């Protein structure tokens, strides 16, 4: 192995409130700013602030040699603007350091890439691109889709927008006998693809503190040794940023692990690369072909769309939101448009997942609802009300 590419996903959704039609107006009619603020502040103090501080220190310590990448969702930035400007400032410092690459995605961390028309998807990418420019003075060149949702037509949309690369999940049934540790290109568009090495990623993100695991306890030098011994050009290590301090609590030693990681990786002879650097340095070795109806993602055991669209409740809710598009847009009402986009955030659909046996525990961990059924009924209650709002407004503007 020659290079390591780290990418962190930073996201907080706007969670819905337990909806009952009352006199509230605007975004507060549907979203629970109290629970959102509480969650944001909790995760900020456990994860975002200490991890950003550590990453900035490591950048200082290792100069240009330590390099990482992030995608930060628009909904997360909304929450920073409301509750923690200083946190946003630390991301700005990363952007200024030159050692961090920021990646574009949809502003609302949405499922819009699964709409039949890509127009809304593209609008949300532009929206994200604009907030990167406004807040971080940064122009991303690489794209990653919500939860690594990927298929050929998503790749070609991204290629048409001029991005240099896209991130996806490295899945055996797509790769066949090939390794995820090389650069590939997308079938049809030739867009370079970086595939996640899910074993080495999940060793940190999921298994780090698992005492049943043969790799436990995981140390930075052990991990660097594994990465070095893997075959290929680059290991792509993609994970939720909340791994640090939130999914893996501070007491597990995750921060100590991170503190020592750059030194151990560099001394093992590996170099850090960001996604654009990876595609600039390594030639693609083959093609990745994912039909639109076999869309892949990084979620759950299935690594497909079933975490969000696996049951009838999810499919109905998604169809309701999808089909509202022309009507919401026809109102020309910016607030309705924003609410509609917030309802596209993948988390709402994830909460409704009923795949209890294997992954349900992860779903319920993230959810404020006591059950996926409550989540679905509550979402649909919002849909009934929001749909009325949209059609009422439409009647007024006509």
């Amino acid at each position, binding site marked *: 192995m020659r290079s390591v590419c780290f990418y962190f996903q930073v996201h907080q959704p706007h969670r819905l409130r337990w909806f*009952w*039609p009352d006199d509230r107006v605007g975004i507060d009619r549907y979203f629970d700013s109290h629970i959102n603020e509480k969650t944001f502040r909790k995760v900020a103090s456990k994860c975002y602030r200490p991890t950003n501080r550590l990453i900035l220190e490591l950048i200082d310590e290792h100069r240009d040699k330590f390099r990482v990448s992030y995608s930060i969702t628009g909904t997360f930035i909304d929450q920073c603007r409301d509750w923690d400007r200083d946190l946003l400032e630390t991301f700005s410092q990363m952007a200024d350091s030159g050692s961090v690459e920021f990646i574009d995605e949809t502003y609302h961390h949405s499922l819009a890439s699964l709409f039949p028309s890509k127009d809304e998807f593209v609008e949300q990418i532009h929206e994200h691109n604009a907030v990167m420019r406004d807040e971080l003075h940064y122009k991303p060149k690489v794209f990653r889709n919500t939860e690594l949702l990927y298929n050929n037509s998503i790749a070609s949309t991204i290629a048409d927008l001029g991005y240099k690369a896209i991130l996806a999940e490295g899945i055996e049934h797509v790769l066949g006998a090939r390794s995820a540790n090389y650069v590939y290109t997308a079938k049809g568009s030739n867009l370079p693809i970086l595939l996640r090495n899910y074993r080495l990623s999940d060793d940190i993100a999921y298994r780090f503190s698992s005492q049943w695991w043969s790799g436990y306890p995981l140390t930075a030098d052990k991990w660097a040794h594994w990465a070095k011994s893997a075959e290929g050009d680059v290991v792509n290590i993609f994970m939720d940023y909340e791994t640090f301090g939130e999914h893996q609590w501070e007491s597990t030693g995750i921060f100590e692990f991170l503190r020592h990681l750059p030194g151990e990786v560099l001394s093992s002879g590996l170099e850090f690369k960001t996604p654009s650097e990876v595609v600039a340095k390594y030639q693609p070795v083959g093609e990745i072909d994912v039909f639109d109806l076999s869309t892949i993602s990084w979620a759950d055991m299935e690594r497909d769309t079933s975490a969000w669209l696996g049951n*009838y*409740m999810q499919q*109905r*809710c998604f*169809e*309701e939101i999808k*089909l509202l598009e022309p009507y919401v847009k026809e109102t020309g009402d910016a607030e309705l448009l924003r609410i509609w986009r917030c309802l596209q955030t993948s988390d709402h659909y994830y909460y409704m997942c009923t795949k209890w046996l294997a992954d349900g525990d992860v779903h319920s961990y993230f959810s404020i609802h006591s059950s996926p*059924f*409550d989540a*679905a*009924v509550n979402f*649909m*209650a919002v*849909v*009934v009300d929001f*749909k*009325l709002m*949209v*059609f*009422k407004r439409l*009647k007024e503007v006509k």
Partner: protein
Amino acid sequence: MHQPFRLRWFWPHEGYESDSASLDLYFDQSFNHSVFEEISELYIRSNRMIHDTGIACTFNLSGTLFDQSMWNPELIRSFKKLRGVVEFASSPYYNSLSPLFEEKGEFLRQVRMHRDALSDLIGVRSTTFINTELIHNSIVARLVSELGFSTVVSEGVFGLGDHCSAFDDGVLPVLFRHPVLSCDLEFRSHDTLWCEYPLTASKFAEWIAQMEGNVLTLYLDYGSVSHEFLEDLLHELGLRGIELLTVSEAVSRFDSVFYDGALHLSRLNLKHCLSNHMQHLYLHELGRLSQIMGAGGDEIFGYLQQADILFEMGEEKPYPFDYAVNTFSILSDYARRRV
């Protein structure tokens, strides 16, 4: 007697692809038709038995049953033949919980519709009112008395319904259903684990004979008791000098006991249709829609109010949440066309 229009498994795109709301868009009409075909034959046979034996009783037919009778006009003819034997009572046409809406206009519309249907289809003028799920309170009492009804049937509660009398709260005389004996006949008589199984007509008649009071009210589903049992019961009651009466005969024959206090009654306290969030929200949204539309409510809006829809959202049902999500989707498709 009630047959609902059951909802179909609906997808939002079907709503947007249809220029207007329709029965076929929201309701599973082929299934509803097939259930009706079976049930209407049963009803016709039961009606014949009532006619031949002359069992005095009161019929509470739902408006949706009238609507479905278009599929078999023979059913209406068989009801017509019972005029004089049977008393026909009025209800909200769509078996709805509209009496619980804040605005009472929709409730009144449905009661009037039902009374008109009784007079047009059966040719009778009803004086007894039986609310959906036996809901009764002072507002309902005032409204139905203003509409000209002279008697109401509601739910008995422990300490009240077991007094076998007619009551009067100062507005209207009320007969209280005896919940235990009604449920014995309707449900428990089929339960082999029940300590009183098998329930014979003589045993049941004996229980009634032992009770104090003037009149006992039983209110149950028409299809729940066999013809043989009813015929036996008629005989056994006769042996004990107990007479069968219609509702209006009962209140005119016996003095009512004055009840001084506020009545808030309903069948089983509506536990089966208003116990969870989905049910509360659905009822609330119906009320809100009714307010938005004012007098513009149509047949589909009526069917969306059937209490049966709320039962299916009960958490003891097989798929209450899928059902609720489906139902809310239908409601929102209907509502968006009416704002």
